[in-house]
């Protein structure tokens, strides 16, 4: 069944207003760059608009947006001109939860140091709160792979933060 343009635009705008910030944070955790995160969100939401009638009917808007964003990021990272890694970044803002600028910078640096898929796995698991199965589905791999990638990611984060603790 088709969906008229006005209704589609209205429903889509409501979803965007409600979830765009969350999606942008997710994109930032994946790519560690706010501007690029906005680009990713825009691309994912444009694709979401195209598929809107179908996914609205299925009630999978959020999952579709998340998966599209994730794939956009991983696809872009595969391209040679996107393989550069940002090594220095000015602190963005004060962080909540009693963490200082330095701590926030350390956190970002630690997250940024993770390989793409490990980072995606750990972000999906611990920030988005997905189960192992859901994470595996999003990343198109087995649950075992997610377990190992998550474990390695946590080890690397632990090591990076411990190093910061020692040097700090």
């Amino acid at each position, binding site marked *: 069944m088709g969906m008229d343009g006005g209704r589609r635009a209205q429903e889509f705008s409501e979803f*965007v207003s409600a979830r765009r910030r969350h999606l942008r944070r997710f994109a930032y955790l994946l790519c560690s760059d706010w501007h690029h995160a906005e680009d990713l969100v825009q691309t994912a939401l444009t694709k*979401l608009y*195209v598929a809107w009638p179908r996914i609205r009917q299925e009630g999978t808007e959020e999952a579709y947006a998340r998966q599209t964003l994730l794939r956009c990021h991983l696809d872009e990272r595969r391209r040679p001109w996107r393989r550069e890694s940002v090594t220095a970044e000015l602190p963005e*803002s004060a962080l909540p939860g009693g963490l200082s600028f330095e701590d926030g910078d350390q*956190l970002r640096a630690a997250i940024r140091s993770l390989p793409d898929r490990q980072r995606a796995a750990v972000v999906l698991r611990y920030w988005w709160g997905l189960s192992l199965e859901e994470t595996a589905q999003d990343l198109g791999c087995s649950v075992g792979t997610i377990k190992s990638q998550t474990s390695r990611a946590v080890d690397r984060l632990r090591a990076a933060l411990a190093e910061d603790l020692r040097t700090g």
Partner: protein
Amino acid sequence: MNPDLKDGDLSGEDLSRMFRAAADDSGRPFQIDDLDLLARGRRRVRWRRRTISAVAAACGVGLVAAAVYVVPWNSPSESTTVAAKAPLDNPGIVRECARMAEVRPPDVVPEPQTVWMAFHHGRRLRSPVSAEPDTIRPMRVRTTVTDQSGVTALLWDPRSKAHVVCNLDLLTRENAATMLSTLDTSPSSVRQSELAEYTTVDYARSRPCRGDARDGCAWELWFGHGVVPAEVTRVTFAAAGETQEVPIVDGRWVLRRFEDPAKQGDQPQPSYTIRMYDARGRLVLDDNPNNR
């Protein structure tokens, strides 16, 4: 400093909190404009529709081209025309055409697979059957399923006056299907470029008619193939100075009260004339001794 990190351990809760902290975007305005996003989305929808239309059109062309291999069984008199390459005037074509008859039908009512096999042989028509591939010229093939018993392939070269009719009768209970093929010169009235729109006329079934021989039923059809630009509604048969109107029964021309040619022994083939007319009374085929 996050106290949970002091012992070097990271729980899921720690990670969650870390990520929330790292991705905090308080005070950072959202740069994406809603209207711009909608405009992008609509553009993409339009582009997608255009792409789907183009792909659908391309697939349609592909299906038509592929249909020669999967003959539509349930729709009588369906025709398919495809471009093909083979030297039409090479006798090898007729040989290849005849190979279609080597497929033995599994039963009275043939299965689609049988026809596919038949046209698998027919497909070789499009391969170079000549030892001189350089002489290959573009050829057209049109297959026609007249009913569930017969398949006809008309092959012609738009740049020459020759055409080939291959007729495969799958209802025959013989060891092989009846196969008739002739290499004909198209009449001057036949425009080769429009041959795809012509109807293949098969009046070459040398099969005993299903009627009672005591009624004079000798042969259902007579010799010959032809192509006509319109549906034949009237057929006349003239032999020995006598012209008969050939009745059309279920789309077949049943010639009655004509002496069995086999009884003529060493007599030369009788001179006969077959004329076919369309609904407007126009002569669409004139098969007479002068143009044989």
